[in-house]
């Protein structure tokens, strides 16, 4: 499943319109009830050079952070006590300003095809099963942020 680690990093490739700094300045909200997983993602992203990271193990607080800090990307776990990922996905959709684009990447240990479909149907932009290949996840995050930046630029054009 995981073959030899490729020596590829999203930051290594030159980008024409979007610079590495553009990506690294984005605000990312990490939500997982497992401390270890939050830490893993935080470590991975910090290693990639991201600095504006909001980490939450409590879904309620995470929702507050989403509303308050308007992150550019959300990394979301599905199975959580009290408020699960699906409920948060719905809440995010309601709390997103019209015209705003705040992609959600779902990371879950639930391999059920139903979970995948449901999350995507509720507005998740991508879906990765745990355990994941950290390189792949880093690449998907970068891709989503690129789209997000392009969208924002498109919307802010006169």
């Amino acid at each position: 499943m995981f073959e030899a680690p490729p020596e590829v990093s999203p930051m290594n490739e030159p980008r024409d319109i979007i610079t590495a700094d553009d990506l690294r300045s984005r605000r990312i909200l990490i939500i997982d009830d497992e401390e270890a997983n939050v830490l893993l993602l935080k470590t991975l992203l910090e290693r990639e050079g991201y600095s504006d990271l909001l980490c939450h193990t409590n879904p309620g607080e995470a929702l507050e952070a989403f509303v308050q800090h308007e992150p550019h990307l959300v990394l979301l776990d599905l199975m959580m006590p009290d408020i699960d990922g699906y409920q948060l996905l719905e809440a995010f959709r309601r709390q997103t300003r019209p015209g705003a684009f705040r992609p959600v990447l779902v990371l879950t240990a639930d391999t059920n095809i139903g979970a995948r479909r449901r999350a995507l149907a509720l507005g998740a932009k991508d879906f990765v099963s745990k355990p994941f290949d950290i390189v792949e996840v880093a690449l998907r995050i970068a891709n989503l942020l690129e789209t997000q930046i392009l969208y924002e630029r498109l919307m802010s054009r006169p």
Partner: protein
Amino acid sequence: MSLTAWMRPLRLPFAMTRAWANQPLAIKGLVVVALPLAVLIGALSSLYLASQAEAQAEDDVRLAFAIQRDIYQVHALLAEAASGVRGYLLTEQERFLTPYYKAEAELPNTLTRLDESIVDAEVRARFNKVMALTGRKRDGLSGLLEIADAAGSSAEDQRAIIAALEANKLVLDDLRTEIDQIQVLETALLESRRARVDEVRQGYLALTAISAAVGLLGSLAAVYLFSTGIVRRVQMLEANAERLAQGEPLEPLPEDRDEVGRLAIRLERASALLRAREQALRDGEERFRLVVEGVQDYGIFALDPQGHVASWNAGAERIKGWRAEEVMGEHFSQFYPEETRSFLPQAILERASLVGAAEDEGWRLRKDGARFWANVVVTALFNEAGELRGFAKVTRDMTERKRSEEALRVAREEAIAASLAKSEFLSRTSHELRTPMSAILGFAQVLELDQGDLAERHRIAIDQILKSGRHLLSLIDDLLDISSIEAGGAEINGEEINLVELVREADQLAAAIFAPTALAFEVDLPDEAVNVIGDRRRINQVLLNILSNAAKYNREGKIVRLTCTVAGPTARIEVMDDGPGIAQADVPRLFTPFDRLGLQRVKGLEGTGLGLALSKRLIESMGGEIGFRNRTVPDRGAVFWFTLPLAPRSHV
């Protein structure tokens, strides 16, 4: 009854009554009409005969008178003729002779008439004397006349004349005497005839009176006979017909042979037949009733059109608790519990009378108020005219079945819940195992990415963490897969898949499998599509498992070959190699979980030991089969194969 009693004193002797009664009605009618008529005719003819006899007697009287008159006339004629002759003798004048000539002219006719008229023998004898005396007288007179004409006035002549005269006178006296005698005889005869006429008249009058009396009596007798012979019997017959209609036994009637009698006999037979049929019907009903009443397992009872209980059997008593005498006439809605009583009974009767029968299943009440689950069939009963006569209701106590159904349902629900719980548990287990694995593998990967900063021994450690972690993850995946298939919770689709296309698409993955080995991989596929029913992802999984096994274990061989064929209703994939094959003793253990036939210690061999076990379960859950055989001809080698059901329209 009263009529018979009234009639009894008037009964005729038995034999006579019987003989009369046996006559056909036509004869009886004829007798009744003819009897007075015959009496009338008899009376009339006796009257006629009386008048005839009277007329005859009167004729006889008239004849007697005529004879008397003629006798007098003969005497008168002779007397006048004698005086005339005497006158002539004295005077010799011719004119005194006129009476004599008249007598000579008339006497023969009168005498002839008398001769014809006289019938009485005595009178006839006298008459014959008269005839002789008359002849002598006439001869005497004619002799006198001759003497007178021949003699003169001589004395002798005178004396001769006187002598002749005296002789004549004597004849005339004799004649007179004879005539007187006849007269006397005839008068006596007349008297006797008159007496006879009276006698005959009296006789016939008496006869007429008797006839009238007999006629009257005959008519009365006819009326009586008519009454006894017909009217009374018809009345009795009518009374019997009424008894027949009422179903009462018939009064026995004499078995007369006329129409009424035969009618009575037929009525008797009809009554007997009716009784026999009634008996048969009663017997049949009795048997039927006994059968119905004896049935214990079914409550069978009848309702009138309004729903009141009209019959009740042992089964109904057993099931519902009411005895027949307690429940007869009660409305059947009381068998229904409160919540359905107001509408359900009526609805069932309406449905039954509309479509003939209605079935229902639901709670009913026993007498003690306990509920039982009943299966009820209500059948509407119609008579021949199509009018609703009532309902037959068959009730079965289904409480036990209901309970067992309930138990079965609960068990099934529990099983489903258990299965769901198991699936849920497996899903949770998967999640719970994967979550820490995610952190372990993730952080190991982070370290691996930063290996330049690490010492060699740390790099080896990280490599081992990753390797063992991934193996553990595979184990977890396969184990959960098998478990979820066994729990019935695995997601296995049943779509139509072209197997040829699927194998071609897997070719690239297969190439990656065989790339690190020295084996050649050959594929032999049919040109046309082979459509099977199955799950694309699962078939792929099985295929890659078998191919990777071939790659792993065929270290001595040169080639791995895949073929796809169609046989009957199935498609068959075979993967064969030219390796050493598998010891026949080990073959039965091939598809057992974790049994790696002792090969796990072979250096460099990876795997969970679950691949074939999982493949077997996957193929079987798709309705196929999986198996293995060793190849001996032309070369040695192992053959793994599996089959899948063809899609319906792909069948040849």
